[in-house]
């Protein structure tokens, strides 16, 4: 080695024809054998630039092809095997046999089984990997018009679901991998970017909905690997139980410097006609019917009321209709509220990337600007982002590099859910009717009272203009690393990560807003959060093949991680101006605080691989984590996995089966974990607040559990992978995930000071099957057509609660109980409408002495008890995606459908929209009300309209709908202009494309099937949008 080092310092230019050959200077002058040749693609007969050519087993001897597919390599001898490989093609081994010219023709690698994939702490070939993981390549997400890559994952990998929290750009999607494994410890996966566990989650503290992953431009991603079973994920130990999303950013390639510019414009609108409302005429008719029903049934309480009689029933009905649905008044402006509060939003996206390098140094540099209007008027999401990845081979032994991501996002949202009129979607959906004015004669907002029962609800236009909900995020991710080849086969790699996330959230109400007035003369708060994460990890890797057949690999390493957060908050009231908003221009302090907190972890990790003749593969991993979140005695936890696979196709007895291209089985078992989300739970703390004037009080209001430890996820996976007829690939996984020591807020006797405390007591199980089938329907030089289907079935069950028979109501309509799903619905049981009377019916469902339920029909919600709605859960019976891509010469089309069926969604919006004339008389009316009962004999599930009825709008199974849907999630059509044209202009490639997201959906629902969250609950949040975009990409 020292000898080589000296040689390396000698100048040696004579043999070099191509600049890129500098790569192997170290050994070239001492080489005894020179090989040149050309690499071409078997499907197109075009040369393959940037293909790598390596001497097998001696990775020091490596080169890449130039623009014309030519390579030249100096080898220590004329013996051995040369391997040529390129992404998307099968690598090809050729024995050298002392030849000096070797050409390679690479065949497209549709099997992808030997593709390199990024996994925990390394890269492996897919064929030798015995864990369960899905890879999503850049081309699947590059054109999808979404702000963050998460939204592009729907349908693209088995076992992955997304729940919507809002249709506003930048909001946080709930990703679930193989179901829900935790009750009180979070169910979000771990995100690892280029080896660094990154800050993730919903960071919003200003009601904007802010996903931490917003910072990353999807175009900067090379690939995403989703680690699903213990074998794949348990090297991430105590954070791996919900799966791991590994993100690899783009790296430079040596050769000609490439410039790529992309510009895109898109248009967004609601993806679905959500909750259609009755028309103006229908509104009036439905009101009239309600008051006619009422005055017919209760004349003494209506038109014949002795205190307030009317000349006739008709006069009474007219008066009531006019009262609750007043005719439009001259001089006032009326609008279509949905058009007034929402718009077709324009999104723009511009990207420039430059990549290139030589054999010593490679780089990738990109910058992007993404500007999104939201569908809600006045709301937006903007992002400046950049990535810089650099890799430098300092010596033959040392390679180093750094990845840097920088981004600045600026976002304005609004409140979601039931927060009165500050959620424009809810306002437009539920309370605004055609006959409430928007403007006064002079064009100013009409700010009268819409609904006298709720006199604080004023103009939603004004409310929309006068709420402050913005969030700005600056993020810097710096990841330097160094890798040493100590001796052949032994490598050390050290990675350091700094993840700095700075959030500036602003929330408040201007003085014109009713809430601003309630607080004073305007209310304004500013929150700063700094999420600083430092990660350092070092691994030592050894790989060696003995006697040609036995390959061993071993890895040991350690990792330290520190998450240090700083938060401050200042709230003031009484604004100086309604236009210039700052704390300086706001008067009295309402509240302020700052604090820091910290969570640290120390880990030791190791893995061991053995394979024999590429037939048998065995892997074991072990990680030991120590976390600051647990008491010293319970702080250290062990996480491990064992896995194996058998590549049957490589057995000699399989060699003659020509139709079978691949066959292998794999199995794994292991334990990963989840930490409590609460950082300080093991010792008691006093909280502090002011008490009286100039004094304060200390109090303990959180239990401390010294026994708290990891939630442990025991996961088993068995899988089969095959490829037949060189066209059809199939992989099938069966898994059982058992969560033990489930962290749950277990009930305790109040005498301890608390009613619940976090405790490792419960158990939960997810069982499932994943299927992934891909077919190459046509593959020839001009046309390729592939199609794929993936399908997942997951069954969730809570298998142990803290006490026998314990039930915990969750989010008002779910129930946690042993033997039931985490997403089991619990509510009143709707019994439809009495065909004779039109009255709403519920089952009483009070418990009889013998334990059965009283199934008597009652006509009021308050007489009916909630019960477990057997068989109705938010869990689908199946979900997945259907993908297809088609290429004809320069034109390609890609479609991704996602689907889900067998689950129920709970439509919370119904309690306002389907009042059956009962209570919120001033509100909008759903089109569904047209199906109401009208006369004896009518069979319907919508009761008669009757004011004062204890109507069906209380939470009940009436609000549960079958959620089945299939949706064209993503669609891209792209066309590469003919090379003949572009080359004349000196341009490598020009690609024009059109893309769509949420293009259309088929469903029985009358609202967006993906409006609901990951549990199936839909809570009046802004619905998902459809975006159609057009772009051009120019490569130089």
């Amino acid at each position: 080695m020292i000898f080589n080092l000296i040689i390396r310092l000698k100048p040696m230019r004579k043999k070099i024809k191509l600049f890129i050959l500098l790569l192997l200077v170290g050994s070239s002058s001492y080489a005894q054998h020179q090989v040149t040749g050309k690499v071409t693609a078997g499907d197109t007969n075009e040369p393959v630039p940037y293909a790598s050519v390596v001497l097998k087993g001696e990775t020091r001897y490596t080169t890449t092809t130039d623009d014309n597919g030519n390579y030249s390599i100096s080898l220590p001898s004329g013996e051995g095997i040369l391997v040529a490989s390129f992404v998307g093609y099968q690598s090809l081994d050729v024995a050298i046999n002392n030849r000096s010219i070797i050409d390679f023709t690479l065949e497209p690698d549709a099997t992808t089984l030997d593709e390199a994939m990024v996994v925990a702490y390394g890269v492996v070939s897919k064929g030798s990997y015995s864990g369960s993981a899905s890879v999503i390549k850049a081309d699947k997400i590059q054109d999808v018009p979404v702000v963050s890559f998460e939204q592009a994952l729907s349908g693209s990998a088995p076992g992955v679901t997304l729940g919507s929290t809002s249709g506003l750009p930048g909001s946080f999607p709930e990703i679930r991998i193989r179901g829900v494994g935790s009750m009180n410890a979070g169910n979000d996966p771990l995100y690892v970017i280029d080896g660094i566990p990154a800050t993730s989650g919903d960071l919003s503290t200003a009601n904007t909905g802010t996903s931490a992953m917003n910072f990353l431009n999807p175009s900067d991603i090379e690939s995403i690997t989703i680690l699903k079973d213990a074998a794949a994920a348990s090297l991430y130990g105590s954070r791996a139980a919900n799966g791991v999303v590994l993100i690899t950013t783009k790296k430079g390639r040596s050769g000609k410097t490439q410039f790529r510019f992309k510009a895109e414009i898109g248009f967004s609108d609601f993806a679905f006609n959500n909750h259609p409302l009755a028309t103006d005429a229908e509104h009036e008719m439905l009101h009239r019917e309600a008051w006619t029903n009422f005055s017919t049934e209760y004349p003494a309480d209506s038109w014949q009321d002795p205190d307030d009689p009317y000349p006739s029933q008709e006069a009474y009905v007219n008066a009531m209709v006019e009262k609750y649905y007043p005719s439009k008044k001259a001089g006032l402006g009326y609008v279509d509220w949905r058009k007034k509060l929402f718009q077709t939003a324009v999104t723009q996206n511009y990207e420039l990337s430059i990549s290139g390098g030589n054999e010593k140094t490679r780089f990738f540099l990109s910058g992007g600007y993404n500007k999104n209007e939201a569908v809600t008027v006045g709301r937006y999401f903007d992002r400046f982002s950049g990535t810089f990845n650099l890799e430098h081979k300092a010596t033959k032994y040392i390679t180093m590099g750094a990845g840097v991501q920088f981004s600045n996002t600026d976002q304005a949202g609004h409140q979601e859910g039931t927060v009165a009129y500050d959620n424009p979607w809810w306002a437009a959906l539920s309370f605004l009717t055609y006959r409430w004015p928007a403007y006064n004669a002079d064009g100013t907002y009409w700010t009268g009272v819409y609904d006298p029962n709720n006199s604080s609800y004023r103009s939603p236009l004004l409310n929309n203009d006068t709420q402050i909900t913005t969030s700005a995020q600056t993020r810097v991710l710096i990841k330097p690393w160094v890798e040493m080849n100590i001796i052949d086969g032994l490598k050390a790699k050290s990675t350091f990560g700094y993840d700095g996330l700075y959030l500036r959230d602003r929330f408040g109400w201007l003085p014109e807003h009713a809430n601003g007035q309630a607080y004073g003369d305007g209310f304004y708060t500013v929150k700063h959060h700094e999420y600083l994460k430092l990660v350092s990890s070092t691994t030592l890797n050894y790989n060696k093949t003995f006697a040609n057949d036995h390959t061993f690999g071993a890895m040991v390493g350690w990792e330290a991680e520190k998450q240090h957060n700083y938060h401050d908050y200042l709230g003031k009231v009484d604004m100086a101006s309604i236009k210039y908003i700052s704390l300086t221009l706001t008067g009295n302090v309402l509240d302020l605080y700052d604090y820091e907190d910290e969570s640290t972890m120390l880990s030791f990790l190791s893995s061991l691989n053995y394979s024999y003749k590429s037939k048998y593969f065995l892997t074991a991993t072990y990680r030991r984590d120590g976390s600051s979140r647990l008491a010293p005695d319970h702080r250290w936890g062990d996480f491990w996995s064992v896995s194996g696979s058998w590549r049957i196709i490589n057995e000699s007895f399989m060699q003659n089966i020509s139709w079978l291209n691949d066959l292998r089985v794999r199995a794994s078992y292991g334990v990963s974990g989840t930490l409590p989300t609460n950082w300080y739970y093991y010792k008691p703390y006093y909280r502090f607040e002011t008490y009286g004037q100039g004094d304060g009080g200390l109090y303990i209001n959180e239990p401390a559990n010294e026994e708290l430890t990891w939630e442990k996820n025991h996961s088993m996976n068995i899988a089969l992978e095959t490829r037949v007829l060189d066209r059809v690939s199939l992989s099938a996984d069966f898994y059982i995930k058992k969560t033990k020591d489930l962290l749950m807020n277990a009930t305790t006797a109040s005498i301890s000071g608390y009613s619940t405390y976090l405790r490792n007591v419960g158990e939960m199980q997810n069982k499932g099957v994943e299927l992934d089938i891909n077919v190459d329907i046509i593959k020839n030089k001009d046309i390729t057509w592939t199609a794929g289907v993936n399908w997942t079935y997951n069954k969730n069950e809570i298998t142990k609660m803290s006490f026998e028979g314990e039930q915990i109501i969750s989010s008002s309509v779910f129930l946690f109980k042993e033997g039931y799903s985490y997403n089991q619905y619990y509510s009143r049981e709707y019994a439809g409408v009495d065909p004779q009377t039109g009255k709403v019916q519920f089952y009483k469902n009070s418990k009889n002495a013998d334990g059965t339920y009283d199934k008597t029909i009652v006509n009021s919600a308050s007489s009916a008890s909630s019960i477990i709605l057997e068989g109705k859960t938010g869990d689908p019976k199946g979900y997945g995606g259907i993908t297809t891509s088609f290429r004809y010469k320069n034109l390609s089309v890609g479609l991704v459908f996602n689907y889900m069926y067998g689950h129920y969604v709970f439509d919370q919006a119904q309690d306002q929209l389907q009042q059956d004339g009962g209570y919120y008389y001033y509100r909008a009316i759903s089109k569904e009300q047209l199906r109401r009962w009208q006369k004896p004999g009518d069979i319907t599930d919508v009761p008669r309209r009757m004011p004062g009825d204890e109507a069906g709008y209380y939470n009940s199974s009436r609000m549960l709908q079958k959620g089945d849907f299939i949706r064209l999630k993503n669609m891209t059509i792209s066309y590469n202009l003919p090379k003949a044209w572009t080359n004349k202009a000196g341009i490598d490639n020009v690609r024009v494309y059109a893309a769509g997201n949420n293009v259309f959906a088929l469903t029985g629902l009358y609202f967006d099937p993906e409006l609901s969250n990951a549990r199936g609950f839909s809570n009046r949040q802004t619905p998902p949008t459809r975006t159609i975009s057009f772009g051009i990409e120019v490569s130089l």
Partner: protein
Amino acid sequence: MKKYSIKLLALLTSAILLGSCSDFLDTDPTNRVPSNEIQTIRDLEKIVNGFYLQMKWNDYYGTPIMVLGETRADDFKPRRSTGGFQQIHRYDFTTTNYSYGGIWDKAYNVIMNTNFLLTLWDGIPANTQDEIDRKNNVKGQLYTVRAFCHFDIVRLYCYPYLKDNGASLGAVIGDKVFGLGEQKARATVKETYDFVIGDLTEALTYLSSDYSKEPSPGNFNYWGAKGLLARVYLYKGDYDNAFKHADEILTDPDNPYRLNTNLEYVAAWGQQDAPETMLELKVTIMSNLDDNGGVDSWYYVVWHGPGFAAGNLVPTKKWFDLLDQDPDDVRHGLIETRYPDPEETPFTPFKWLAKFPGYDKDFKKNNPMIMRLTEIYLIAAEAALKKSTPDQAKANQYLNAIRLRANPALTNVTATEDLVLDERRKEFIGEGHRYFDLARLGKTIDRTYDNSLPGTNAYKIVDPWNVSGTQHKVILPISNAQRLANPLADQNPGY
């Protein structure tokens, strides 16, 4: 090359060693104090303040005690037909879920805080007399608060003492720090009263210094503890002792309080630390009654203004009729009338209780009133009538002091139980006393005037001692969750 490698390896190794320092994994946040860092009397005093802090919130005295004390009785009712207040008004309590069911847990959380402080108390040094007085004051307060919370449990969840002389199920006695998951059976009502009285008697010995006899309107002092003891004896029906303690307060020359005068009366409700205030829970703008800036609190609900919950609870006609018997009563100053607004046609003119404008004219700054000297007068008056040797003169003296304060033009009357109770109704409206007054005496709650109770007449007439049929709901149930976690604690009969 090798040198590089060695250097790098050395660097990495040192990083490992650095990283594995044991304290790398020990972290504390900066927004709370570890309980093992409590070291001074000053710290103890902050913890005592913490008791009151927790009690003022929206899950205890900020709202539920007031709603449970008023809307279950006959002087207050909800103005709308839905919501949690209506639930309470209709006695709609179940073992799974009801409004304000969390008060059981809350009271025990405060009790746990008192017991936890007791474990720290011995270890804190006190050297000077001043320090000894302050340290004793801490212990006196913690006993008082512990008694106070147990007393709330027994009056909410247990039958009144006089119903069966305390034989029925009482509180789970929180006399020490209990571990998470530990279980304990309920004592009887009598045992609970004995425990409460024991704590208060103990408290008075620790509060006997001059330091503890200073007025401290945000904390229990000697007078507050003694007043509470008088109240507990009154509920227990031990009128001799009730009278003794109330009378001692009123006749003690060191007593720093006096009644608000007729002229001060109305304005005093918009002030802090009025002359007669013995204990009010301190609310500041920095720490409101609840997370919603006060708008979920009792005071918002009673106050009339824009907003969904505002003005949701109003006094009944029955109560207004009582007050209207004397048009010159100063307490008419606490009533406001609202006339219809042409824009808001469904509103009919109605009268509402404007007793709690908040100090600084901000309804969000209402200090929940726990005890004031007027109550001591009325306890003394009632107990004087009922004690084993009735003292009509004292009864007359104390009752008339309150009556004539309300209207100096009145003439003295001879005190009777009914007159004292009516005076309590007029005086304590909105302060959460009425239901407990009726319950402790077993008096029928007559709400036949009220047409806001649709559907059922079950709770139009409530006899808190005769709990036949569905009337077991006169006391609150132990939640199902608690029954699972603490099967030793029996459920109240009927639930």
